[in-house]
């Protein structure tokens, strides 16, 4: 026990902060992008749907390193787009915290998108028709009728997105690298200390990750549980 106490005392907490920040920002971005994409896809015709859905879901089924490869192709300063960003806007993606966010967002986004889409498709289309015939604007119908009716699906999508973003490793290590205090996330720290044979420190981080993940999911379940208690779904 003393050994664990000693580790905790001298622990560099920066990976925790970086992971949480990355998770929150990536979830925030994915939430709106996912809902936006899901809404567009639900409205689209069958062919467009098949193609767009395939593209949007790819990052979920491909190995994260493949996503990392494409992200590097896109954002590397030696490539046209990355060069363009750097020379015109002084934006650097590779080896930065922005890179962490982009990698986590790309990987976690499909979870948000797919859950939102499945939830929207379950919403009774007559609710939307009713809103329209009652003179409500499309935006109002979407945010006040559709989203709440699809609530449980949207919330579970958000939870999964956060969990996935928090634990992202493959694409992040390629795009953002593992710079301590800058882009070193918990997952990367665990891999690093394992390579050094420091199982004890790795174990401490594993426990921290598990606690965070569990607490967040627990809180969200409680929240949605009380909020959705009276919603009868069919």
């Amino acid at each position, binding site marked *: 026990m003393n050994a664990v106490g000693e580790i905790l005392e001298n622990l560099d907490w920066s990976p925790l902060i970086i992971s949480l920040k990355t998770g929150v920002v990536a979830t925030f971005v994915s939430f709106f992008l996912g809902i936006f994409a899901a809404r567009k896809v639900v409205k689209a015709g069958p062919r467009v749907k098949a193609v767009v859905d395939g593209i949007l879901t790819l990052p979920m089924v491909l190995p994260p390193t493949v996503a990392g490869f494409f992200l590097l192709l896109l954002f590397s300063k030696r490539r046209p787009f990355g060069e363009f960003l750097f020379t015109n806007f002084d934006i650097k993606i590779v080896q930065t915290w922005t890179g962490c966010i982009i990698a986590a967002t790309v990987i976690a986004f499909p979870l948000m998108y797919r859950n939102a889409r499945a939830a929207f498709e379950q919403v009774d289309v007559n609710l939307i028709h009713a809103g329209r015939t009652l003179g409500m*604007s499309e935006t109002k119908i979407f945010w006040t009728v559709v989203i709440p009716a699809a609530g449980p699906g949207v919330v579970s999508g958000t939870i999964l997105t956060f969990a996935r973003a928090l634990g992202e490793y493959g694409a992040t290590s390629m795009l953002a690298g593992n710079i301590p205090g800058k882009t070193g996330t918990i997952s990367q720290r665990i891999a690093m200390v394992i390579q050094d044979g420091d199982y004890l420190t790795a174990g401490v981080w594993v426990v921290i990750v598990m606690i965070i993940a569990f607490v967040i999911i627990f809180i969200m379940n409680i929240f949605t549980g009380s909020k959705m208690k009276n919603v009868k779904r069919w």
Partner: protein
Amino acid sequence: MSIKVRINRNLKDFHLNVDFECNSDRIGILGASGCGKTMTLKEIAGVEDAADVYIEVNGRVYADTANKIKLKPQERRVGFVFQNYALFPTWTVEQNIMAGIKGGKEERARICRDMIIKFELNGLEKRLPGELSGGQQQRVALARIMAYQPEIILLDEPFSALDSHLKDRLNQEMIELLSDYQGIVILVSHNRDEIYRFSKELLVMDQGQVVLNGDTKAVFENPQKVAAARLSGCKNIVRIERLSNYMYYIPDWDVKVSAQGAVPEDCEYIGYRAHDFVPIWGEVRESGIAVDLKSVAEFPFERKYFLHSKSEDICWFVQRDMWKAFDESGMPDALELREDKVLYLN
């Protein structure tokens, strides 16, 4: 009070081709499921796209493809009561009722209060739709629409999801609640009783087309079309062969009928309501249809006999008083048609 509707829409395996004009304020559309009734309502409301439409309500054009007019559903002032009422599940009764009311906060609250009183929803203001009974949900749906002050109300099979004992009561209740509504109401249903008691004017739809349009009572008395007769509840419809202007033969029942008035030239079928047969015992006369019993369905106040005749079965409904008599006399040997009850169809 008038509505003009023309819809032409080709789907993969369905063709909706509706054209009607009504001047009544209570209109019924009767049709079997899948005949295009609901789609017609949705076109009027503007929540469904059609290739070619013309819709005009009380002189206001909602949609006119030829002149590139197409009002959004939001601009049409149509009150639509959906089959499942489509109350917003996460909104309280109060919020649902206020959904369509425009204006200031106080004005909206005042209209909402009026509706809650009128539709007897006191005490339920803060409930969610899922916590209400079917009847209460129906009242909320109507209150929400009345608060919106629509030009026209469309009711899409509003009773189909209800238990039969509730159906009857809520049907009556809806008629009462809508009685002081000044605009047009269209009720769509496959149930002839609902349509009969609700509507002044009736449209009969079959396979995407309006086959008959007229005064409700007149249509039920003289349905003219096979589809209309069937939907009006006529159980026996058979082909005829005209022998002369006053005489025809029914091959399926093997009977010759002499009519008192002239049989219409274009008449190909006759309809005969299951209550109207006259039982005959003993020798079968020329005008009698020889029958024997196939099966019987018993109901509390009625029996439905299914009888064999030559090739087409006959459906005969008998009230309790009459079937009691059968206990003494046995089943009749033949049935006769009452000439004045025959419906000439084409």
